[in-house]
């Protein structure tokens, strides 16, 4: 039996709220963070809206030394630092330490380094101005930039890893941190992920015609998971971080415990049997969820809430079918299900961590957030689960066990089970 792992701190930079109180309020009230982005219209993209955090750059001065702040331009790094340091402070830890925290590591993911920063390198190099780049560029164009800033600021001395598995990145980061603690390799892990969808990353998805383009004039209605009128996802930016700790370690320092990570699993569908670069093999998804349930040692009948990947594409129906098969539950017997993406869009690498923070907030505060923009549930989905399982307004309810999954390009899957912490 491995160590028990608990969540003792959280931080979030979400399109619909920065910081736990603002994010919680938005979740409860179904507040959208999707906004019109004039530049995308000007650049002749098909989709003109995105989930954009209302982030104030100067707020970083509260987190970094003046020297670190000077020359920092990477938005992805800024979001990650904010979420990570907020989570650390929320766990009751102080920022300053002379000795590294040898027992504390970090797994923080992202999909790509800041491509605006990379563009600056390309322009200067092509312009024969390489000498003007300076010393602060590598740290912002290397993929491990975010983890380097976080671990350096906090003095984390255990293993420090940058993970990347597309839209499963955040979920996988939490899983990896959980596994390190469970196996005794670390006492505490700062885990999470970030994503800054800049113009270039946005453009690559826009070109695939997987983004919604029918609600450009009504941004808040544009992200429509599980609805008949869903026509693609809305990219979102942000970051979230969680502090995971060995239960005994957390109890010994008198930490406040938010929730327990009961188990999880990650796998790939191998891009076989319906799985491709962009679509999941349903057998892989079902196996991932089943493995997570087995690792947690729970009965799927006890799951109160499923926080789906549910991006608002054609894949939503198949995802619901896979959940139904994996849990052995359908119709009215299916758990409540929601998608944070209806409010914030698809935050790609950051999705898993932001949505996991949402799961834990629902556990702590006893509610299920609404699925907004679900005026017209997809009839094909209603053949699998009952309409009552898909709340369109907030439900006050005791939630004890939540299943969270995300699925990414490359046919990669990750699933986590969060529960209320019970002393035993």
């Amino acid at each position, binding site marked *: 039996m491995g160590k028990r792992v608990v969540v003792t701190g959280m931080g979030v930079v979400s399109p619909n709220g920065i910081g736990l109180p603002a994010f919680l309020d938005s979740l409860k009230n179904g507040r959208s963070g999707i906004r019109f982005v004039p530049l995308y219209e000007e650049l002749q993209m098909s989709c003109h809206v995105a989930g954009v955090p209302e982030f104030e750059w100067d707020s970083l001065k509260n987190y970094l030394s*003046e*020297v670190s702040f000077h020359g920092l331009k990477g938005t992805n790094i800024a979001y990650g630092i904010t979420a990570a340091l907020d989570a650390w402070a929320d766990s009751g830890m102080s920022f300053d330490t002379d000795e590294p925290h040898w027992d504390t590591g970090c797994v923080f993911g992202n999909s790509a380094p800041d491509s605006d920063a990379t563009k600056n390198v390309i322009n200067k190099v092509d312009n024969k101005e390489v000498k003007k780049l*300076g*010393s602060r560029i590598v740290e912002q164009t290397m993929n491990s930039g975010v983890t380097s800033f976080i671990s350096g600021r906090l003095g984390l001395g255990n293993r420090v890893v940058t993970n990347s598995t597309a839209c499963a990145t955040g979920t996988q980061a939490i899983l990896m941190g959980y596994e390190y603690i469970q196996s005794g390799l670390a006492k505490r892990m700062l885990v999470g992920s970030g994503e800054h969808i800049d113009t270039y990353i946005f453009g690559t998805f826009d070109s695939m015609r997987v983004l919604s383009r029918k609600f450009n004039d009504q941004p808040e209605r544009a992200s429509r998971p599980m609805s008949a009128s869903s026509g693609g996802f809305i990219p979102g930016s942000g970051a979230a971080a969680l502090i995971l700790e060995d239960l005994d370690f957390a109890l010994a320092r008198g930490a406040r415990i938010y929730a327990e990570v009961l188990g999880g699993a990650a796998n790939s569908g191998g891009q076989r049997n319906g799985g491709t670069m962009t679509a999941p093999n349903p057998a892989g998804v079902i196996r991932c969820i089943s493995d997570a349930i087995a690792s947690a040692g729970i009965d799927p009948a006890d799951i109160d809430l499923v926080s789906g990947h549910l991006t608002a594409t054609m894949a939503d129906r198949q995802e619901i079918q896979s959940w139904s098969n994996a849990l052995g539950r359908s119709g009215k017997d299916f758990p409540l299900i929601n998608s944070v993406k209806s409010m914030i869009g698809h935050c790609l690498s950051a999705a898993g961590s932001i949505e996991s923070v949402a799961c834990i907030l629902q556990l702590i505060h006893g509610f299920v957030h609404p699925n907004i923009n679900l005026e017209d549930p997809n009839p094909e989905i209603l053949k699998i689960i009952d309409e009552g399982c898909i709340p369109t307004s907030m439900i006050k309810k005791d939630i004890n066990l939540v299943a969270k999954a995300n699925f990414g390009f490359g046919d990669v899957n990750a699933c986590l089970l969060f529960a209320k912490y019970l002393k035993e």
Partner: protein
Amino acid sequence: MTREEILNELKSVFAPYTTNKEMLANINDQTDLITDLKINSANLVDIIIDAEAKYNIEIDYDSADKMINVGSCIDVISEKLNQK
């Protein structure tokens, strides 16, 4: 430009790279960039780039290697300004 004028201007060039503001206010020719001002050695490159832009000069690798304290920074900048 006099050495004193350059010294005063260097305070603003160094400012973003040091948290030791008291030492910065009182720099003299002997003030060492790394040991006194606690500037990260990687940032010396940025200081050279900033000085090049400020004075519209080019600082070659050999000259840059000499810029370890305030006095040697002023030497190099004066020399390059005089060559213009």
